[in-house]
C-alpha cells in the first residue's frame, strides 16, 4: 500500500546545507589559477622561443666567423688575414658572455658531427683554442649526473686528451650513465685507455656498451690493439667476455690454452664466446675439452659445441657423436648431432623419416608380363655376374703417377726355377697361400730394405684390392677383403664390407692354392724366404664355411709373423732387374693356364681363376683328406689321381700322398694300443652323440664296421639301454659273421707294410661308391664325413 507524499513528514534523505557565498569565492579562485597557469605557459613558451630565436641569431652570427676560421689558409690575401684577426678578437670578446660561449660550443659540436677531414680538425683546434673545454671541465664537478655526463661527452667529442686524467675516475661511478660515458671517453681519448678500462672496471659492461666500445676501437686510426688475452684471467666476468670478443674481432690467436680453459667457465656467455673463438681460430686441441664439457653444458652451449666439433672434428669424433645420437633426448640437439655427423662424414646418416619402404614401389605384373619380368631378371643376374667379374678384374687401378714410380719395383718372379717362395704384400699386408709344397707358393714381398723410392711405390699398393687372393692375416692393416665364393651354378664374386671382413678373418679361411699362380721367368736366387708348409695350410669344411680352430688360428698368426721377419731379407735388386722394359708384368700359372695378375697400361688388374665343379669337388675332398686323413687314404688318393686329369688335383693329391707316405706308421705301430688306432673310430663319436645319433651310428657300423668295432659294441651292450643293446647286438653279430668270412685276407694284408689298401679292400662296395661320389666314399673317412654331414643337416633342419 502506497503512502501519499503529503502524509510523509520525515524525509529519508536531507540535502546538505551550502552557503552560496563560498561558491562564488571558489569560482573566482579557480579562474585566477587558470589565468596564472596560462600566463605561466605563455611566459615560459615565449621565453623558450625567445631563447631559441636568440640562439639561432647567435648561431647565424657565429656561423660566418666559424666559416672564416675553418677555411682560413695562409694563401689568403692581406685583407682576409686582417679580417681573420679581427674575427678572432671579436669572437673572444663574445665568448666572455656565458650564453654566447654556450651557443658557440653548441655550434662547434653540431658542426663536428657534419664535418670530416681537415675541416673537422680545424674545428677541434678552434674549440680548444677558444678555451671552451674549460667549461666542460667545470661540468665534471657538478652534482647533477646529466651535467657531468654532458661534460664528459663534450670532451670526448672534441677529443680533449687533457681530460683523460679527469675522466678515468668516473670509470667506476655508481651512476651508470656517467660510467658509460666515462668508459667511452677513456677508450676514445687515449690508446692505452682500453687497458685502463679493462684493468679497473668493476661493473657490468652492457652488450650495447661493448658494441660502442668496439666501434670506438674499430674507428681509431692506426690503432694497434693490445693482447686482449691478458684479460682472460680477470675477476670481472664481463671483462673476460669482452676480452674474448675483442680477441675474436682482432683475430688474436695467441691465447689458445686460456680460451680452451674458458670452455669450462660457469658463465654460458663466456663458454659460447670461447667456442666461437675456437671455431674462428681452428683450435683443434680444444676438441677433447669440448667433449668433456658437453655433458653438463646447457642446450645452447651443446649446439655450439656440436658446431665446433663439426668444424674442427675428424672421423675420430664419429663414435662420440654416435653415442650422443643414441643418448640425446632433445629433438633439436639430436638433429644437430646428426647434422654434425654428416658434416664430418658426409652422408653417414641417410634420411629415414617418412621414407617409403621399397615394397611400396614394387610394380606387380599380370601373368602375361611375368615371363617378360623373369627374362629381364635372368638377364640382370647374368649381367651382375659379368659385372662383378669385371669389377674384380679391374677393381684395383693405379694412377699413372704411381705407375711411373713402379717401373722398377714391379717384378716378375718364376718360382718354378727356384725353391723359394715369393709373397705379394705391402708393408702392412701379408698375402699367403696355403700350399704345402715349397714350389707351390708364389709370393712377392716388398721389404723394408728396399730403396726409399721403391718402398713408396709399394706403399701405394695399399689401395689395391688384393682380397681375392688367399687369406690376409693381419687384421689391423687389412682394410678390405673381397670374398670370392663359388656357388653351385656359377662363379660369383661377392665383396664383403669392412665389418664383414673382420668376422671373416676370425671365422673363415680361404684357400686359393688351387688357383694357378705362377710367374714368368725371374731369378729370385737368394734370400727369398721359405715358409713352413703347415703354417699356411688351409682348412676346408664340408659346408664350405670352415671354422678355424683356435690352434690353427694361432699357427697362422705365427706364420704371419715369421713371414714378415723373413720378408725383410729378400734381395729385391735381382727382382727389380728382371722387370721388363715395357712396364708389363704378367703373373701366370706355370702352364699359363689363366692370367691372374696383370700389370698392363699402368693398371694392375686381378682376375679370378675359377675351376670346374668336378675339380673343385676333388680339391675339397683332397683338402679334407689332408686335414683329417692318414695313410689309410693313400689308395683313395691314387684313385682320385686316376679319375681326374686336372693337373691341380693331381699335383695336390701327389703332395698328400707324399706326406702320408712319410708319415704313415708301421702296421704294428698303427694298431698298437698307444696310438689308439686299434680302437674303433666310432668310439669317440659314439660317446659324444645323442640317442638318435647313436642309433644312426650303429647302422653305419653295421655297414662299414670291422672287428675293431667289436669292443665298442660289447661296451654298448653292457652299458646302454635296451633298444641300443638290441641294435648293438645285431650289429655285433653281423660284424662277427663278416669278419669270419674275411679274416684270412686281412691277415695277409697286415704282412704287407707298404701295401696300404688293407682296409679299403674290406668293403669293395664302399670303395666303389667313393669313386662315384665323395659323399658316399668307401673309406672310414668318407663314412665319417657322411655322418658328419648327416648330423649337420639334421641339426640345421
Amino acid at each position, binding site marked *: 500500500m502506497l503512502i501519499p507524499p503529503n502524509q510523509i513528514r520525515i524525509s529519508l534523505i536531507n540535502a546538505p546545507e551550502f552557503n552560496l557565498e563560498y561558491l562564488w569565492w571558489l569560482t573566482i579562485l579557480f579562474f585566477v589559477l587558470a589565468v596564472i597557469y596560462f600566463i605561466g605557459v605563455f611566459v615560459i613558451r615565449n621565453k623558450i622561443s625567445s631563447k631559441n630565436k636568440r640562439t*639561432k641569431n647567435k*648561431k*647565424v652570427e657565429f*656561423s*660566418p666567423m*666559424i*666559416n*672564416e676560421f*675553418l*677555411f682560413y689558409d695562409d694563401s689568403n690575401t692581406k685583407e682576409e688575414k686582417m679580417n681573420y684577426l679581427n674575427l678572432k678578437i671579436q669572437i673572444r670578446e663574445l665568448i666572455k658572455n656565458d650564453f654566447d660561449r654556450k651557443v658557440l660550443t653548441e*655550434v662547434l659540436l*653540431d*658542426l663536428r*658531427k*657534419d*664535418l*670530416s*677531414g*681537415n*675541416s*673537422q680538425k680545424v674545428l677541434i683546434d678552434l674549440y680548444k683554442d677558444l678555451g671552451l673545454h674549460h667549461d666542460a671541465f667545470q661540468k665534471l664537478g657538478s652534482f647533477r649526473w646529466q651535467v657531468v655526463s654532458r661534460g664528459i661527452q663534450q670532451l670526448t667529442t672534441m677529443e680533449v686528451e687533457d681530460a683523460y686524467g679527469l675522466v678515468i675516475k668516473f670509470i667506476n661511478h655508481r651512476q651508470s650513465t656517467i660510467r658509460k660515458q666515462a668508459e667511452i671517453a677513456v677508450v676514445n681519448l687515449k690508446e692505452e685507455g682500453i687497458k685502463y678500462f679493462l684493468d679497473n672496471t668493476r661493473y657490468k659492461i652492457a652488450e650495447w656498451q661493448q658494441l660502442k666500445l668496439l666501434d670506438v676501437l674499430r674507428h681509431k686510426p692506426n690503432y694497434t690493439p693490445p693482447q686482449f688475452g691478458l684479460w682472460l684471467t680477470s675477476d670481472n666476468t664481463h671483462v673476460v667476455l669482452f676480452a674474448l670478443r675483442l680477441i675474436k674481432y682482432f683475430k688474436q690467436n695467441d691465447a689458445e690454452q686460456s680460451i680452451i680453459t674458458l670452455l669450462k667457465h660457469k658463465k654460458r656467455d663466456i663458454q659460447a664466446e670461447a667456442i666461437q673463438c675456437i671455431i674462428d681460430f681452428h683450435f683443434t686441441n680444444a676438441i677433447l675439452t669440448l667433449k668433456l664439457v658437453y655433458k653438463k653444458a646447457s642446450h645452447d652451449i651443446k649446439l655450439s659445441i656440436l658446431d665446433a666439433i663439426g668444424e674442427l672434428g675428424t672421423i675420430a669424433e664419429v663414435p662420440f657423436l654416435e653415442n650422443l645420437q643414441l643418448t640425446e633426448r632433445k629433438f633439436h640437439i639430436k638433429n644437430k648431432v646428426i647434422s654434425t655427423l654428416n658434416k664430418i662424414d658426409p652422408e653417414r646418416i641417410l634420411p629415414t623419416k617418412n621414407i617409403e619402404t621399397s615394397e611400396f614401389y614394387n610394380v606387380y605384373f599380370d601373368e602375361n608380363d611375368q615371363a617378360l619380368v623373369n627374362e629381364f631378371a635372368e638377364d640382370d643376374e647374368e649381367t651382375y655376374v659379368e659385372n662383378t667379374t669385371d669389377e674384380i678384374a679391374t677393381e684395383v687401378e693405379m694412377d699413372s703417377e704411381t705407375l711411373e714410380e713402379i717401373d722398377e719395383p714391379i717384378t716378375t718372379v718364376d718360382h718354378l726355377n727356384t725353391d723359394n717362395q715369393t709373397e705379394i704384400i705391402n708393408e702392412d699386408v701379408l698375402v699367403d697361400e696355403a700350399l704345402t709344397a715349397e714350389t707351390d707358393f708364389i709370393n712377392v714381398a716388398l721389404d723394408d730394405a728396399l730403396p726409399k723410392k721403391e718402398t713408396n711405390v709399394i706403399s701405394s699398393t695399399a689401395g689395391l684390392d688384393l682380397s681375392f687372393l688367399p687369406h690376409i692375416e693381419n687384421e689391423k692393416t687389412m682394410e678390405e677383403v673381397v670374398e670370392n665364393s663359388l656357388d653351385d651354378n656359377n662363379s660369383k664374386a661377392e665383396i664383403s664390407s669392412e665389418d664383414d671382413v673382420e668376422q671373416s678373418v676370425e671365422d673363415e679361411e680361404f684357400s686359393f692354392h688351387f688357383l694357378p699362380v705362377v710367374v714368368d721367368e725371374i731369378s729370385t736366387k737368394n734370400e727369398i724366404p721359405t715358409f713352413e708348409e703347415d703354417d699356411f695350410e688351409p682348412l676346408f669344411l664340408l659346408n664350405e664355411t670352415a671354422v678355424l680352430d683356435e690352434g690353427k688360428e694361432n699357427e697362422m698368426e705365427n706364420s704371419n709373423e715369421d713371414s714378415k721377419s723373413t720378408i725383410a731379407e729378400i734381395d729385391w735388386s735381382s727382382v727389380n732387374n728382371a722387370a721388363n722394359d715395357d712396364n708389363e708384368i704378367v703373373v701366370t700359372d706355370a702352364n699359363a693356364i689363366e692370367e691372374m695378375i696383370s700389370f698392363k697400361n699402368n693398371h694392375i688388374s686381378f682376375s679370378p681363376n675359377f675351376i670346374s665343379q668336378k675339380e673343385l669337388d676333388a680339391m675339397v675332398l683332397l683338402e679334407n683328406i689332408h686335414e683329417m686323413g692318414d695313410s689309410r687314404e693313400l689308395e683313395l688318393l691314387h684313385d682320385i689321381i686316376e679319375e681326374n686329369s686336372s693337373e691341380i688335383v693331381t699335383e695336390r693329391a701327389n703332395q698328400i700322398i707324399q706326406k702320408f707316405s712319410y708319415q704313415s706308421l708301421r702296421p704294428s705301430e698303427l694298431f698298437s694300443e698307444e696310438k689308439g688306432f686299434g680302437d674303433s673310430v666310432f668310439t669317440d663319436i659314439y660317446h659324444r652323440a645323442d640317442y638318435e645319433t647313436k642309433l644312426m651310428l650303429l647302422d653305419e657300423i653295421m655297414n662299414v664296421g670291422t672287428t675293431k668295432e667289436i669292443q665298442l659294441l660289447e661296451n654298448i651292450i653292457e652299458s646302454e639301454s635296451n633298444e641300443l643293446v638290441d641294435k648293438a647286438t645285431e650289429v655285433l653279430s653281423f660284424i662277427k659273421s663278416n669278419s669270419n668270412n674275411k679274416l684270412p685276407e686281412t691277415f695277409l694284408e697286415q704282412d704287407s707294410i707298404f701295401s696300404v689298401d688293407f682296409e679299403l679292400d674290406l668293403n669293395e662296395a664302399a670303395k666303389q661308391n667313393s669313386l662315384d661320389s665323395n659323399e658316399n666314399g668307401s673309406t672310414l673317412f668318407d663314412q665319417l664325413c657322411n655322418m658328419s654331414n648327416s648330423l649337420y643337416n639334421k641339426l640345421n633342419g
Partner: protein
Amino acid sequence: MGNRVLLADDDQLLASLLNFRLKKGGYQVHHSSNGKEVKEYLQNEMPDIIVSDIMMPYCSGIELIDYVRNELKSKTPIIIISSAGNEQNVLTAFELGANDFITKPVSPTELLVRIAREINK
C-alpha cells in the same frame, strides 16, 4: 661568373658553411632551406648543379630528384648529401637519376671536387 649551385639543406649551420666554402671556391650559390623553396626556384631558374640534402621539409631530396628528372626533364647534375647513407637511400637516389651521393660527415673540400667533376662532365 662561376657556375650556379643550388644548395638545398635545412641545416642552417652546415648550409652556411658549405655556402661559404662554395662561394670561396668560385661558385654562385643559391641556398634553399626546404623543398618548397627549391621547387619554386627551379621553376624559374635551372642551376648548373644541385646539391641537396635528403631530409628536408615539404619535399625530400629523393622527391626533388624525381621532380627534376621526370617533371622538369632536366639533366642537371644532382649531388645528394645525407647522414642517412643506408643502402636503400643510395640505390633509390641513383635509380631516380642522382649523379653522386655523399654521406655525412662531409668534407667541404671533397664536395668541391665532386661538384667540379660533375659540372665538367
